[in-house]
């Protein structure tokens, strides 16, 4: 089957533009929705059609764009971006559907920006040319800048938008210069013609010293976008000010694009640097997991609980990528898909909860909704359990692979990261219980899910369940190319792992100390639970 990725890519932006130009009150929403749904249909057929045995890119579109600079308009799909494209299409469709049933000021403009955002994300995921990637990566910022700046709460949106722009622009500029340097230096050092095409650049490996700073520039851009500790300064304000359907795609997809950047660009192009900075990246990931988790269970703003929780979950993804082996990478790609699939419905649920708590998104104002909203409670429970990566969910499979990958070569990081696994259950359940259980909050008016909202939430939850039952599908579709994307770095990091099918006698490792430590850590985590959810907030007086 021939699939034209350009069609997939430009459909949402085209629909958004048409909606902006054509008259009619409902045209914009209908068109935007159709555009995203079309992209989703296209992505689904790509997933079905995708040949997992073939290596390399599929459905490639390759046109020379700017000949003098060696920039190509090259799109393609492989195991690394296949399910992320599906995720992006799915979440944008869900978000559009959600937004379509609500009133917006200047709706045409709103849906236009959503459409452009969708195309930008798809472009960044599909681009197989470094310059094209950078262009789409930066294009992503613009619609979200508007969506926050125009439709955010009037009082605080300017601060939020300024922070967001400054942070990401710094990252973008670093990335832009790094991208140019990559192509120019690669051509210079190897004496070839200038080219930005990724597959060309991969063959022209830069000198180790050059790789280092370029890698760091890219890493900075990606880490800010996710965000990772300690460059998450824009996140609290940014999250507070985005309209919820916008936040759902922002948190669900845009952060994954950054993680994807590591696998698509940083690891294959700069393997020496990736090995060089492996420990640094693992440390940043670990810090994000621990810091994000601690923040998530001390804040009382439901949005930020989800925000910091995303930070922790993205920490796991980075951990998996920088395990620099097959299992870590497989887990990271799966987890990127899973996390998006979970965090978006979580934000939708949050919108419904806020609507029932008199507009407040503070968990102290919520409570006791489950009784009158059993369907909503069940959906939220499934989402919550998936978010805390309960075994049986695909999120657990992702985490299992990630931590197994890390454990293979860097056991200490894996063991420390497990603290985050236990903490996730504390902050996620705390959110669930505070919203759904306990006494009814003073301003709470509970009612069950409306059909329009159910149309968004139920399919997403069904998708969570489906992938929980059969995570094999994303794992096996992606296996070949995901493994290839880390191959260069993996081979540099050490001899091929002896673990697995062929057991080889290994020198005994001093694990007893680690084991004792682990038990202490486990006991410590137990205690966290035992004391309930510790935090700065106090129980509201009855």
């Amino acid at each position, binding site marked *: 089957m021939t699939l034209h990725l350009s069609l997939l890519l430009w459909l949402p932006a085209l629909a958004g533009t048409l909606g902006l130009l054509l008259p009619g009150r409902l045209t914009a929403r209908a068109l935007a929705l159709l555009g995203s749904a079309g992209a989703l249909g296209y992505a689904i057929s790509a997933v079905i059609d995708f040949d997992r045995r073939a290596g390399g890119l599929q459905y490639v579109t390759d046109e020379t764009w700017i000949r003098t600079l060696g920039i190509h308009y090259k799109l393609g799909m492989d195991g690394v971006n296949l399910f992320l494209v599906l995720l992006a299409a799915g979440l944008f469709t869900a978000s559009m559907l959600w937004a379509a049933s609500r009133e917006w000021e200047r709706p045409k403009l709103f849906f236009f920006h959503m459409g452009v955002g969708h195309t930008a994300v798809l472009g960044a995921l599909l681009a197989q040319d470094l310059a094209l990637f950078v262009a789409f990566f930066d294009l992503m910022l613009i619609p979200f800048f508007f969506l926050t700046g125009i439709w955010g709460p009037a009082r605080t949106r300017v601060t939020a938008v*300024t922070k967001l722009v400054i942070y990401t622009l710094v990252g973008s500029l670093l990335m832009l210069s790094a991208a140019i340097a990559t192509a120019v230096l690669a051509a210079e050092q190897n004496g070839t013609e200038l080219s930005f095409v990724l597959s060309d650049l991969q063959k022209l490996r830069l000198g180790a010293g050059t790789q280092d700073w370029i890698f760091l520039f890219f890493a900075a851009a990606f880490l800010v976008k996710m965000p990772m500790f300690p460059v998450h300064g824009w996140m609290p304000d940014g999250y507070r000010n985005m309209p919820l359907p916008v936040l759902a795609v922002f948190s669900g997809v845009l952060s994954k694009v950054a993680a994807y950047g590591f696998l698509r660009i940083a690891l294959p192009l700069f393997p020496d640097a990736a090995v060089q900075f492996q420990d640094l990246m693992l440390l940043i990931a670990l810090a994000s997991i621990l810091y994000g988790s601690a923040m998530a269970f001390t804040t009382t703003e439901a949005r930020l609980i989800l925000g910091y929780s995303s930070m922790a979950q993205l920490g796991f993804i980075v951990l998996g990528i920088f395990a620099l082996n097959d299992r870590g990478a497989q887990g990271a790609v799966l987890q990127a898909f899973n996390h998006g699939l979970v965090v978006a419905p979580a934000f939708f649920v949050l919108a419904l909860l806020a609507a029932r708590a008199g507009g407040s998104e503070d968990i102290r104002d919520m409570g006791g909704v489950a009784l009158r909203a059993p369907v909503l409670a069940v959906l939220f429970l499934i989402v919550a359990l998936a978010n805390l990566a309960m075994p049986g969910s695909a999120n657990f499979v992702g985490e299992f*692979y990630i931590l197994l990958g890390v454990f293979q070569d860097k056991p200490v990081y894996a063991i420390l990261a497990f603290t985050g696994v236990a903490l996730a259950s504390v902050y996620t359940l705390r959110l669930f219980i505070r919203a759904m259980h306990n006494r009814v909050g003073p301003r709470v008016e509970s009612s069950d899910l409306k059909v329009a909202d159910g149309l968004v939430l139920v399919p997403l939850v069904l998708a969570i369940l489906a992938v929980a039952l059969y995570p094999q599908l994303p794992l096996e579709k992606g296996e070949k190319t995901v*493994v290839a994307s880390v191959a260069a770095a993996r081979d540099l990091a050490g001899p091929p792992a002896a673990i697995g099918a062929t057991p080889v006698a290994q020198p005994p490792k001093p694990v007893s100390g680690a084991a004792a430590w682990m038990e202490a850590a*486990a006991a410590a*985590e137990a205690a966290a639970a035992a004391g309930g959810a510790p935090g700065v907030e106090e129980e509201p007086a009855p």
Partner: protein
Amino acid sequence: METTAWLVLAFPLAGAILIGLLAQHVPAKLTGYLGTLAIGGAFVSAVLTFLSLQGREEEARQVVFVGWDYARSVGVDAQISILVDPLSVLMILVVSGVSTLIHLYSVAYMESDQGYARFFAYLNFFVFSMLLLVLAGNFMLLIVGWAFVGAASYLLISFWYRRTTATKAGIKAFVINVVGDVGLVLGTYFIFKHTGTLDFLGTFDSVERDFEGSTGDLTAGCLLLLVGAFAKSAQIPLHTWLPDAMEGPTPVSALIHAATMVTAGVYLIARMHPLFEQAPAAADTGAIIGAVTLLVAGTIAIVVTDLKRVIAYSTMSQIGYMIMGVSAGAYVAGLFHLMTHAFFKALLFMAAGSVIAAMGGRQDLDSMGGFRKAMPYTFACFCIGGLALAAVPPFSGFFSKDEILLDLGAEGGWHWVLYVAGYVGSLLTAVYTFRLIFRAFFNDPVPEAQELMDGHLHHPAEAANPATGETEDTDVGFPGADHHIAEQSPFMRVAMGILALGAIVGGFIQIPKVTHGLESFLDPTFARSEIEVEPSDGLIYFGLVLGAVLGLLGIAIAYRIWVQKPGTSAAIQARLSVLHKLFSNKWYFDELIELVVVRPLSWFGRFGQQTFERIFVNGALVGGTTGLVRAGSAAVRAVQSGYLRSYAALLLGGLAVVGFYFLLQA
């Protein structure tokens, strides 16, 4: 056999889903029957599986059935596969059998609860999870079942979710169980690292070869598996969730916190015995923790005054025996005690539920008494359960506990310490069990008992949470308008009657020198075990006599203290006030955990929230930003917020123009 084995899982799962979907559309009563039928179906399937397993050659009684590839990639062989062998069949028989009776009991007990359908959906899901746990044929599925059990337990503990005490207990149980999950996963990593397979049989086949020269990893792996076992089986120091879990409805306590969930740790150690036998340090740790737990829990059970919590601590203590047994190589004995304990502990909880209902929901022993005449059937059941728990011959607990201690004694070496601890625990068990019986059923009838004798069930004027005194929100259920006691409900009587029968005769399956039913049944699973003990005749007779004497002595002590001379207990308390304080504060484990973990963690959280985020993130890193915003905000206000918009519009437009230009160039 393949079909029946899968059906064991399919029935409860289908039950849970069906009840969940139908709950709003059919009469509530129907969901109770549906749930009971589903578990009954699982039990029948389990029996059929048992029969066809017994029909096979002894060497062929370990069979793996593969459903589908679950997450099989880059050398990780995670499949949906189940292992049917005598051990798993014993477990599914016990779990589905006892669960069927508990469902039957709940049909009546929960009748007036608003959350009736929800209760049965959860209960079915719980049984499914537990069956999945024991049938799992590989580590991945084991972990899944393990976690599902924890989640189901959380749902059931916080079943009355408008009670803050219940939701707190729920999250505590869940999180401690997650710690256990983490232990299990990490343990799996250590083992997988050498064996390269998640499959149980594949792992066991090559243990010795794979871990040659790296017993450190194996020991670490087994210790981590123990963390999982301790969390689920409420062993020190991961036990603090179990007493709090009594917040759930009484059938839940009976099902989860006595008969099934808490035995998962025992099952795990028995299942992993080929690993533990190669890692003696880990096995010894398990045995010691089991012994410590059985003693500590026993001492707490003597002073606690909440009816259900006494039984909860007794569960902890009995699981301690089992963990001690299976860790020290007494596999059959440990599983034997698991089975008899499932009968008599479920029975005790059911009887306790009946008493609590008669008390209008109150659980404190201090306000109970004299129920003997008012509730003869409940009293009889409580006594049978109590005698079995106190290990008085010929009740089932006598033979199973004796078997564990006998094996430990015969093993010799330092295991005599465990042997002695076991008998000390035996005495404690008899004392606290009969303290319970004497205080609840003897002496003068309290008003509630009197009311019942007058032919009327006590109803409190206003339902209140016994723990906090706050008025109950009866919307979500208990206490509803009606209570049900065994004396008046045929369902409850039948369920308790069958369990009472099991508690009496269950021990005859395995009597020293007489019958060996369980041992020969389980033999295929433990065939490769290297631990062989042949207790001498002298030890056998000494143990039987000592066990019987201690049980009766304990009852006599309890009778003396709480019936003959009611003032004695206060006198003892006064004289041993330090010990009493230690025991009634549960050895200060909650406080210890608070001090070591919760305080530092919340300090860290507060530091991050109040200091780090404010100063570092908002100050230093974006100091320029905020300054810029403040300076620029006046200008922004001057041209209105449209300024930002037009600025960004310009950006977008510019980008489009540049893009278009290059497009034309190309």
